[in-house]
């Protein structure tokens, strides 16, 4: 059974780009898409992915709210989450780590770097 990656991202272009990169990474992982934090929580519980890429600024429910929910749920608390955000300040990075993210990845993305990061967490 292939591993799953949940991408929570409200921007369609970003979703497409991550999908494009993952398809070409030959990781063999299935991508599950959520367009906001609430959907991310629901789909994480439903699919139990191996990794979550979470945009921090999203409508309905942002990443800052969704991540503590996921980390507080026994079914999803073990899933590594990469904060996928345009906020690149050191204090933002620190804050994402404080709420339980395994990594902080600043947009804009670099495909090779992103794949290396994903590969690292899928291998664990």
């Amino acid at each position: 059974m292939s591993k799953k990656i949940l991408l929570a991202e409200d921007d369609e272009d970003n979703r497409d780009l991550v999908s494009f990169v993952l398809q070409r990474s030959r990781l063999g992982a299935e991508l599950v898409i959520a367009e906001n934090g609430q959907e991310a929580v629901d789909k994480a519980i439903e699919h139990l992915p191996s990794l979550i890429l979470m945009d921090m600024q999203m409508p309905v429910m942002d990443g800052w709210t969704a991540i503590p929910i996921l980390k507080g749920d026994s079914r999803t608390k073990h899933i590594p989450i990469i904060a996928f955000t345009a906020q690149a300040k050191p204090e933002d990075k620190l804050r994402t780590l404080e709420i339980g993210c395994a990594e902080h990845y600043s947009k804009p993305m670099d495909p090779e770097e992103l794949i290396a990061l994903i590969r690292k967490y899928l291998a664990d």
Partner: protein
Amino acid sequence: MNSPSGAPDKAAAKQCLLAADRFLKESRFQEARTEIEKAKKLDPANVYVVAFLDRINYFEAQKKKEAGPVAAAPPPVAPQAAAPTPVAVAPARPAAPTASAPPAMKPAPAAAPPKPAAQVVPPQPPVVTPPPAAIASTPRPKEVSADPVPTPAEQKAMEATLEEMKRQIQMLSHSLEVEKKAREEMTNQQLESNVRQLRNSFEKSWMNGAPNDAEAAELHKLAVSLSIPENVEQSLRREVKLKMYSNAVKEVIAKRQLLRSSSSTFEWLRKVYQVTMEEYLEYETKFLLDLVADQYKGTVLYVSPNVKTKDELIPRLKSAGYAVVLSGSPEEALEKIEKVNPNLILCHTEFSAGSLSGIKFLHLLRATVKFNFIPFILLCQESEVAQLQSSELRHHEGFLKKPVDVEELMIAMNEKLAHFRDYVSSLS
């Protein structure tokens, strides 16, 4: 049996010959001979009487051969001593060709006697002509008779036979040619269909990058099963790979604002699609056109000794909308220039020992009609500026001192390109 007046009864003789012909057709040889004897008596000078006897003998012998071994050949017929007089006679039935040559009808004498005035129907020698069907199957020239000099009639018959044979050979050759073409067309159509099938499989496999080893092996197996030659397979693979790479480049161009760096993304894509540096350089202009599709300003051939190391000018040029083709030396630039057809050349002055200098490269280009008007900017050392200003260059050649101010370079490039555009426009 002549007429009461003693004159030969040609009409009666003709009737006898016709009757003999009928008997011959029915293989009633004895009765045919009797008719011939009658004809001989009625018209002793009739030349066809002897010829007819020959025919009877021949067909009788053939008949016997068919039935079983023949004890003796038919007796030869003595040649007619008297000069023959042509008579009106119905054309004899054509003899079927056989392995042994049929005895030719006794040929008419070389110098035929004058035709009697009363003769209405011209004498028609019973030419032995193989039936068309027989010709078609095994055309065989009529064997020459013992007479070393063939008569005109014989010659004519042989020529006709040869002509017919030639015609049939031509027809056969034509048919074979048509069949060959049809087979070739079928083969080509089959090959095209196979190539199409392999291309589809390649495209599917290369959609998201180079296939893994197992997929690649499957593709090769498919090519072998479709009888596609290895060189065609390789060329197809390369074509599909570059197409898929190009499509991927186009896809990310639209989202380049989401990428940290376009150039590193394209480098990654080159790895994903296993596009070699050689292939990339070959197609670079096209790919870079994709990259800067909405802001393409032209192609720059950048000649720099630092192309293999980090040269910060390259990404600046690319981000400014130029497709940049790199050369590590003027010699390499000369190799690429025709293929690249640059809008502008940007060249350093100093290269490694043994290489042309940038100035010599410029002089070389200006001495070549084809490259005489390509806008050129030299990137020189500060110490060279005075020298360049004084004499070495024509006044309109551009140069900038290093370290290059990018803004200044962009202005200089725009000026050169504008000047070149004006020049080209003035030609039309």
